[in-house]
Every structure is written in structure tokens, then in C-alpha cells.
């Protein structure tokens, strides 16, 4: 009888010790908190910036060295972060309803925007580096002109929290999605609502443009991934999963996309199959790291297991 009990204990211990987090332990960046709400990658793929409680940390992707810390801008946890395409500016949005624009090189605060419109849930710089778009938990999204330091537009069509915002790569379209299950597209020439994309049946968590802005991919709490053809105004469900999809990243050609789920699953859909990894924590962000060698590498931010740099070679490939 005792032998059986020992066997079960040993098995449980083994399962416990060899948890997925430990397998990828050496992939971790050093942060004070393991609860990373957001991360972003510089345009050249060499610097990654992540939230770390009330501060931001910038790391070298190559050797995981800490390049700098951005402190003193927020009184509460930072929820989202973005880096400008030219790499000069970093923006952060927090639970304290403030947006801070930082100088990347000096880590000094350039501008602090008190939105007073709820917690800042997502943000993106425009491709021309001139504007910052940020979404809030009180269903509003705001467009801010960085040079003139003025609020350009307040988008108020959303009915619930804004969870994801995006600029098309040409800067002509703004996409806003959130809890009301609708993706709204606005033209940046007049900021009028162009299109409402309806199909999701639960909160949308992540949206990305690809194929030179002809398509948009989205995922959310309905566990589905939708591909939207913007020119034809059509969509198709390309994948269903078993848990909330919290984040998506896709290459511009659309051949490779990665998702992260609430249950800690990471899936990279590849032309030859799907690379899988399982962590113990929800995945808040997946970002493809551009590699000239063609190797598939991703940065993964998690709510509980820190920030990681994963190589697809170490993941399980399923057909």
C-alpha cells in the first residue's frame, strides 16, 4: 500500500517540478514582477520594453541585458506600452489613468497626459511617429498629437472597454476593438467611422493589420480567430481554441501568426504545422522577433511567469 502512495507522490512531485515554466526558465528576462501586462519590440527587433509594476524596463533582445528603466511616471501599475517606429519615444499607460511619453535614450519624461478617462488599456504610435493612439477602460479611445501636445480626437463609439488599438502601416486607418465585440475602423483623414466589423461573440482582445493593410486578424474571449478582408468586407473564422485568446501577432505576409491564451498556451501557426508551448500563466503578449536567419523566435509576456524569449525549435511541433 505504501509503495503505491510513494509512487503517486513521486509522480505528483515530478509533474510539479517539471512544470512548463521551469523548462523555459533560462529564457526569462530579469524583472521585479513576474506579472508583465504588456511588452513591445523596437522596429529593428533589438530592444524589448516591458511593463514591470509601476515602471518600464528595456532589454537587449540578443543578450537579455537591461538597457534602462523608466521610473517615476506613474503611481499605479502600467498596463500598456508602445515604442515609436523611429525608436526615439516610448509611451506607457497606467491604471492611474495617465499616459507618459518618455525619451527612450535618456529615460526622461517628455510629457505626462492626464486623460481622466479611465485606465489606459492599450496604445500605439502612428507610423509617422507624430501621434499616439490609446484606448481606455471607460470605452473611449483618444488620439494625441505629440508634437503639438494636443488631443486630436476622442473616439466614443465603443460601448465597453477598449482592449486593442492599431494603426495600418500606411497610417490611413485606425482600428479600435474591445468589449463590445466590434472592430471599428476610422479613416485618419477625417476620423469618421468607416466600417464596423462584427463577428466576434465576446470581448475582442487583440487586432493586427497585415498583407499591406488589406487584412486584419483578431482574437478574443470567444476563443476564435477571425481574418477580415478589408477590401471585400468579408471575414472568415480561421481557428478556434479552447480558451480566451489574449494576444496575436502576425507577419505581414500572413504566413506566420502567433497567439497567446488565458490558460498559458502559445501557438505559432506555421506553414508546416503548429508550434506549441504551455506556460503556467496567462499570455499577455506575443511578438515575433525578426531574424535574418529565418528562425522563428518570439518574445512572450506573461501574467505570472515574467517576460521570455522563446525559440520555436524548443517548442513542440504538431501537424
Amino acid at each position: 500500500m505504501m509503495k503505491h502512495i510513494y509512487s503517486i507522490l513521486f509522480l505528483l512531485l515530478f509533474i510539479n517540478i517539471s512544470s512548463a515554466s521551469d523548462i523555459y526558465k533560462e529564457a526569462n528576462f530579469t524583472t521585479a514582477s513576474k506579472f508583465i501586462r504588456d511588452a513591445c519590440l523596437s522596429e529593428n527587433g533589438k530592444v524589448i520594453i516591458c511593463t514591470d509594476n509601476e515602471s518600464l524596463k528595456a532589454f537587449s533582445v540578443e543578450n537579455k541585458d537591461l538597457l534602462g528603466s523608466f521610473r517615476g511616471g506613474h503611481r499605479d501599475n502600467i498596463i500598456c506600452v508602445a515604442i515609436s517606429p523611429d525608436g526615439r519615444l516610448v509611451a506607457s499607460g497606467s491604471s492611474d489613468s495617465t499616459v507618459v511619453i518618455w525619451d527612450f535614450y535618456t529615460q526622461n519624461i517628455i510629457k505626462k497626459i492626464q486623460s481622466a478617462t479611465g485606465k489606459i488599456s492599450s496604445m500605439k504610435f502612428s507610423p509617422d511617429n507624430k501621434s499616439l493612439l490609446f484606448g481606455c477602460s471607460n470605452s473611449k479611445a483618444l488620439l494625441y498629437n505629440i508634437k503639438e501636445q494636443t488631443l486630436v480626437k476622442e473616439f466614443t463609439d465603443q460601448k465597453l472597454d477598449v482592449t486593442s488599438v492599431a494603426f495600418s502601416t500606411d497610417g490611413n486607418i485606425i482600428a479600435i476593438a474591445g468589449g463590445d465585440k466590434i472592430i471599428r475602423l476610422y479613416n485618419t483623414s477625417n476620423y469618421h467611422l468607416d466600417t464596423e466589423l462584427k463577428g466576434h461573440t465576446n470581448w475582442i482582445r487583440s487586432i493586427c493589420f497585415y498583407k499591406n493593410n488589406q487584412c486584419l486578424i483578431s482574437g478574443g474571449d470567444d476563443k476564435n480567430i477571425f481574418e477580415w478582408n478589408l477590401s471585400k468586407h468579408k471575414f472568415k473564422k480561421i481557428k478556434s481554441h479552447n480558451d480566451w485568446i489574449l494576444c496575436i501577432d502576425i507577419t505581414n505576409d500572413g504566413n506566420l501568426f502567433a497567439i497567446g491564451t488565458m490558460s498559458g498556451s502559445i501557438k505559432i501557426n506555421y506553414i508546416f504545422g503548429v508550434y506549441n508551448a504551455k506556460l503556467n500563466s496567462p499570455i499577455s503578449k506575443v511578438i515575433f522577433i525578426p531574424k535574418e536567419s529565418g528562425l522563428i523566435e518570439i518574445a512572450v509576456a506573461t501574467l505570472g511567469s515574467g517576460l521570455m524569449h522563446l525559440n520555436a525549435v524548443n517548442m513542440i511541433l504538431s501537424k
Partner: protein
Amino acid sequence: MNKIIMLCIFCVLVINAHSQMLEDKNNLYLGYQNGFYLGDALFNNQGTSAPSFYSNFTLNNGLEVKNLYNLTPLVSAGLKFGFLNSTNWQCRNYESYNGSKSSTINLQPVIQLHTKFQKNGLYNRVKIFGEISPIIGYSMLKIRNNIFDIIGYKWNYDNFNRTDLIYGLEVGVGCEYSFSNKIGAFVNISRQECFVSTPLFLDNRYTFLGLNIGVRLNISKVKRFKY
């Protein structure tokens, strides 16, 4: 000794690995209750001994359904529905309430103070709590023996059923163990002090000491988990 060490290591390792990825705000508790009424079997009724009604029930089984919403990291509030069935009335030398049955149905607003959720470590799995809840409900009595003659009360001699209002207070302490975000188990002890206004018996106050065990189910995921 080795077995104890082995078990300790096991427990520590299991506790170290986190089971809940995020704090769940809205939880449903389903529990089974067993316990006993406190108090003497007999009480002094103006110089004569009379058998207590509640204290002599020997089989007490109940169910509870509770929904709690996490208001702050340390405080939850909600509503509890409790059902307690008491049978097998036994008192030496007395047969006053033999075969009687008492059922109580309570609706209780609950305030729970508990340990703070942590993303890792002991308090990721374990929650220690204390709770207090006013009780309002009904006591449904089924008295078998016709030994009463209460002036001004009209008996239906064929049916000794009666429903009375009960009110009181319950306090409890316990702990909860989470297997995952979705499911956990809890155990707690509680003490109910209740008043029943009924002419069927004289001891219209009871104290029930209960042991509750059950499961915690998460019925909804928190949408705003990042904020």
C-alpha cells in the same frame, strides 16, 4: 519518520506551485453541513424540568449554496442560502418530541474577511477566512406528539406542522484550498445563534455548531484582469 518528511516535502512543493493564475472575483460555493445544537437536554421551566426541543436532535444535515463577490483584496460579500434538516429527537425519560422534525431555510447576506490573494506561494492556493452573516429564514416544524394544550392557539390535531420566522446571526471561520482557478474545496466551522417565535415549545432560542465542507466553483472569469 521518512513518510512524514516525504509528505511534508510534497505539501510544500504543491503549495509553491501556483494553482490560480488570476484572482477570481465571483465564486459559487456548494457545501454540505453537519453539526449539533448546543445546550442542555433539559431546561428549567419555572421550577420544573422540560426537555429542550433543539438540543435533543441527534441527526442534523444540511446544504448550503453561497455566492461571494470579491469587493476588495481582503473583503468579499454575497448571499448564502442554507438548508438544515434535524431529525431523530432523543431525550432520556422524555418522549415529548419523539418523531419530530425541524427544517430551517435561511437566506443570509454574508460579509467575508479573508487573506489576500497572491500570484505565487501559499496564499495562491490557500485562503483563510472569517465570515459573519445575519440570518433570516423559516423554521418548518413537524411535531408528532399531541401533548400540548396552549390557550388561545387553535390546533389542527391532524397536522402538527407549523412554519415560523427565525432570525439570528452566524459567524464562522474556515479555509479554502484551490486546485485551480475553476475549482477548490473549503471547510469551515460556524456558529448560529437564532431565535424562533413559536408556541409549540418553550425554548425558542437555539445555538447550532456546524461543520461545513464543500467545493468552490468559479462561475465567471474576470474580464478586467489586467487593471
